[in-house]
Every structure is written in structure tokens, then in C-alpha cells.
């Protein structure tokens, strides 16, 4: 019964968002059916549709997990965007600085850099909350802007190839490249940037599940999230939990850097994130803060993102920005879940 309800509310929210989106498309003067056919249909062709969809899903799984873990611990991490920027830069920084190391050393080193940088940037608002009681929402928002400025400065003044008009760093050493899945899957061309980080994302989802529900740590995180006062009474140091949860959340967001730098562009490219951190909020909510739900929700948003391309190309008036509108509508409908619940309760009473 609980599983059914867990599936019912997100589905209803998505359905409502799509209906509202259809109204907007119709008002703009295009055909909703044709638009949705393009949006949802293009993701399933082989190899480009599926390859790119899974590639787009990778960062969203990471940020979705980041937001979900924080929410389980009672914290709202609006800072995944900043965390992933700092982490991606750190990844590239290690990849550039130790460019001559062999892959067996350099790849793990870069991955550690991504995770540690994300964890540190995530832990800052955790420490601020634990030590000074300042709200993590405001601090994570502010740190997003600080991160963008800081990384922009480092790229522009220290790590750009002189004369390069693009805001990007020098390339990382070839030892820092991780294989694309095309190397293992026949028929999947190497130009599609789907890489091992996708498998890492799936693994992370499983690890988050184990962490939250099978370990003492995870139990303490969830206990803190449910009722901090009771957790404290039960012997959990809530302050420590706050810092730890934010660090884990930041680390997960930071792993976006592995996909972006080691698996895709092989350098840090300023402003690469297509709102991954904020979409992560939608992903986590839609996935009901469950690591497996997050994967499903990330896939849905990736399908939309992939579908935005043909929408741009083949419709008269609607642009791919309809995807952003759908995302926003999903967030609003999921957040307003009580609207559905009320109806659900009434129906329950009648039956």
C-alpha cells in the first residue's frame, strides 16, 4: 500500500505538470501532442537517444542523491550547484597539475579530488549551522555565487591557456580520462559521451541506500532528520550529524565533476552546469528522497532534456525551454502534494 502511494503521488504530480505544460504549449500556438511526441520520443532511439539520455541522467542522479541525503537528514541543500562547480574545478586542477601520472594513479586521485572538494564546500554551511545556527538554505545559496566567482577567477587568471577566448582550463593529462561506454558496448559510438561515471552514479545510488538504511550512520542521519530533539536525547550529536550530512551531500554533488571533467570535456569548462544543482531538487522530490526513486526521476528529466533538442528544431513556436517550464511545474506540483493527499484521503474515507 505504501509503495503504491509512493508511486501514485509523483505520477499524479508529473501528470498535472504535463497537462499544465500542454496548456502553455497550446496557448503559445503549437500542438501539445506533437511537442510531447518530440519531447518524449527522441530519447529512445539507438544509439543517440539512449546514449545521450543516460549521459544527461548521470549528473542529475548525483545531484538528486545529494539533495535527497540532505533532506533525509532534515537539511535543504540548495547549494549542489556551487558544490559541483568547486568539485569539477578541483578535478581538473589535479588532472592538470599531475598530468604525467599514469591512469591507475591519476583517475582515483581526480575522483578523490572531486569528492573531497564537494564535501568541503558542502560542509561549510553544515559547520555554519552547527556552530552559529545560521540557516543552511541562505548559506548554500550564497555559497553558490561565491563558488561561481571563485572558480571563474581561478580559471580566468590562473588555469586558462593564454590567448584562449573561451573560459576553460587547459586540458587534463590523458591519464585522467575515464573510458566512454562505447568502448565496451558494440554499436555505441565513442562520440557519445556516456561514460563510466554513469555506472558510478548507479553504484552511488545503491551505496546511499545502504548507508541510509543499513548502517548506524544512516540511522542517525535519518533520526536527526525526523526529530532532532529526540535524536539528541537518544545520544546522537545533532551538530555532528548536520556537518556530516552536508559533507556527504556535497560529496555526491561533487561527483558530477567526474562525469564532466574525466568523462566528457577532459578540462574544466566555466559555466558547464545546465542547472544540475537545482534540477537535483526536482529529482530528489520526485524520487521521494529515495535513492532508487532518484534514479528513476533523473531518467525522466534526462528524457525531457534530450527531447528539448528536437523540440527546438522541429516545432514552429515552442522552444526547448519548455523543458524548464515542465521541471518547474513538477517541482510546484510535487511540493504541493497536500493538494492530492486531501483528495486521496476523501476517496479513502468513501471506500
Amino acid at each position, binding site marked *: 500500500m505504501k509503495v503504491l502511494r509512493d508511486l501514485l503521488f509523483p505520477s499524479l504530480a508529473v501528470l498535472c505538470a504535463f497537462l499544465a505544460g500542454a496548456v502553455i504549449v497550446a496557448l503559445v500556438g503549437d500542438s501539445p501532442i506533437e511537442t510531447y511526441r518530440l519531447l518524449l520520443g527522441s530519447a529512445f532511439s539507438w544509439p543517440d537517444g539512449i546514449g545521450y539520455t543516460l549521459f544527461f541522467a548521470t549528473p542529475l542522479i548525483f545531484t538528486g542523491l545529494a539533495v535527497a541525503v540532505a533532506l533525509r537528514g532534515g537539511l535543504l541543500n540548495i547549494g549542489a550547484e556551487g558544490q559541483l562547480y568547486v568539485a569539477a574545478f578541483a578535478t581538473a586542477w589535479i588532472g592538470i597539475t599531475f598530468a604525467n601520472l599514469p591512469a591507475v594513479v591519476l583517475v582515483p586521485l581526480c575522483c578523490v579530488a572531486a569528492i573531497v572538494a564537494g564535501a568541503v564546500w558542502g560542509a561549510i554551511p553544515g559547520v555554519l549551522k552547527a556552530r552559529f545556527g545560521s*540557516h543552511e538554505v541562505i548559506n548554500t545559496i550564497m555559497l553558490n555565487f561565491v563558488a561561481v566567482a571563485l572558480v571563474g577567477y581561478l580559471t580566468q*587568471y590562473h588555469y586558462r591557456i593564454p590567448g584562449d577566448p573561451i573560459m576553460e582550463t587547459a586540458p587534463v593529462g590523458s591519464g585522467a580520462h575515464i573510458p566512454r561506454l562505447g568502448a565496451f558496448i558494440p554499436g555505441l559510438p565513442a562520440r557519445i559521451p556516456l561514460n563510466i561515471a554513469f555506472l558510478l552514479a548507479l553504484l552511488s545510488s545503491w551505496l546511499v541506500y545502504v548507508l541510509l538504511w543499513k548502517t548506524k550512520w544512516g540511522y542517525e542521519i535519518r533520526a536527526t532528520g525526523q526529530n532532532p530533539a529526540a535524536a539528541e536525547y537518544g545520544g546522537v550529536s545533532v551538530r555532528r550529524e548536520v556537518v556530516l550530512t552536508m559533507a556527504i551531500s556535497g560529496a555526491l554533488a561533487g561527483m558530477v565533476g567526474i562525469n564532466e571533467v574525466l568523462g566528457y570535456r577532459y578540462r574544466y569548462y566555466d559555466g558547464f552546469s545546465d542547472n544540475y544543482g537545482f534540477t537535483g*531538487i526536482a529529482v530528489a522530490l520526485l524520487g521521494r528522497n529515495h535513492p532508487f526513486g532518484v534514479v528513476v526521476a533523473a531518467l525522466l528529466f534526462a528524457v525531457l532534456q534530450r527531447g528539448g533538442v528536437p523540440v527546438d528544431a522541429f516545432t514552429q513556436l515552442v522552444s526547448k525551454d519548455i523543458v524548464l*517550464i515542465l521541471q518547474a511545474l513538477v517541482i510546484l506540483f510535487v511540493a504541493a502534494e497536500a493538494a492530492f493527499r486531501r483528495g486521496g484521503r476523501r476517496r479513502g474515507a468513501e471506500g
Partner: protein
Amino acid sequence: MRSILTLSLVFSTIRLATPLVWAAIGGLYSERSGVINIALEGLMLAGAFTAAAVTFYTHSPWAGVGAAMLAAAFFALLLAVVCIRFKANEVVAGTGINILFLGLPAVLSGALFLSSGSTPQIPQDELLPTLSQVVRIGPQWRVLTDVSIVSFLALLVVGLTSYVLHWTPFGLRLRSVGENPEAADAAGIRVNRIRYAGVVLSGVLAGVGGAYLSIGQSSLFTRNMTAGRGFIALAALIFGKWRPVQTMLACVLFGFADALTIQMQGVVKLPSGEDVPVQFIQMIPYVVTIVVLAGFIGQSRAPGALGVPYDKES
């Protein structure tokens, strides 16, 4: 340093602080009533787009501002319904509104103007006027007359807000539902009704701030043209301790930092002969906010019931 502290820096500060003041004072109404408003960014974008589009069709900037107020108020109402009626998480719902306005203006401008996210240019004489275009005063007052009407109105709004907050029944109710909704309810105040008013007012004012961006400071709407100003306004609100005059001063400070960044570009050099990296000045509002929130520069205390939905039954 002397060379950059000129009159143009003062003007630049006023221009850049104006949209922040409107949005931050808007945020004040919402947050003093107890509803977190991180949607200021999106509401400003709603205002900016609507103002530019309506001015383009009607050739009247004031019609544009009016429409901007209505449009932003409408979406603030949507936020209020989701947060108050359906008890959604206010931060999450606000994020939803922000993302909505990354997409909605782009889709609409594509349909209306066949562009990818911006409105057509609006002629100079159809933009929001400066003082000199409205009143005739001597050239010795040039300093004042170059300032936009909207900047003066912002000053007025700050004064009015200060008055409303402390000297009117509405202000008292607004503050009481934000501090202690249970007590307010016991005193017969309709808590949620006041909160609706607070959030919708925040939309109205943030809408004006956005309108000033598109048809005052520049002459068209461009994609994501607020570029984080809604969040700086939020930062100013916190720095200003949720009080009107202090909040305005914080906006002026942040506007000044922004103006300084622009003026310093290519003018001021570090001792090593390099440009001062603009990124460090851009960080100022955000770092200041973090420091203030941590209580290093005086305690900034949020309204008591900020972010707590009010449920009569519980």
C-alpha cells in the same frame, strides 16, 4: 583611488541599487509575515519580461510597469497558494518559481517575437523616464534630474513601508503573524489572510524592480537578465535585519560594490600591474551575508515564525 570616486560612481550606485531596493522591500513584506521568499529572482524576471513585452505593444512604460506588477503579483499568489494553502516547503516552491521564469519568458518571447529569449528593443523615449523628463528644474540640479523616477519612488516605498510596518494596524498584524501566529490568531487576526497579502505585495514590488531592469536600466528583456539580483536582494534583506531602512542601506552598499566593479575594470591595478579580479568584488554581498548570518557583525534575527506554515488545528 580618487579618480574613480566620481559622480558617475554615485549615479551608477543609485542605478544598480534601485532594483535591489524594490525586490528586497518586497521580500520584507513576505518574510515579516512569516513566509520565506526565495522566489524574488523569478518574480523580478516575471516583472522584467512583462514590462518589456507590454511596453513594446502599448508604447507606454507605465502600462508596462502596471502589467509587471500584476504579473509578478499573480505568480506570487501562486507561490502563496502552494505554500499556505497546500503547505509546500517554501524554499522548494520558491525554487520552482525561479526555474519557471528561466523557461517561461524564453518560450513566450519565442512565440511572440520569434526570438530565443529576448524582447525587441524599445525606443529610448518609451523607457521609464528620469526626473529631468518629468519636471523642469535648472541645470544646477542636473545631478538629481538624471536619476530615474523609479529610484525616487523606491525611496518613497522604503519610507512608506517603515510607516506601514510600525504605525498601521496592517503592519502590526503583519509583524505579529510573522513572529507568533498562535498569539495573533488568538487575538482574532486571520493569520493566513495576512500572509497572502504579504506574499502578493512582495510580488508587486519585486515586479517593479524587474520592470526597472528591462525598461529603465536597459531597453529590452534578455534571458535571465536579473543574473542573481533577486538573491542579492534577499541577502540585503538579511543584512538589513528585515528592517526597511537598513535593508535599503544594504542594497545601496551592494549596489556600490557592483558599481565599483564596473568602474574599476581596467582602471585600478594591483601593485603587480594586474587588473583587480572582479570576481572578488562580486563575492562581497554573498560573503557579507554569510558573515552576518553567523553573527559576526551583530545578530541578524529572522522573524520568529519564518518558514513555519500555520495550521490552526495543530
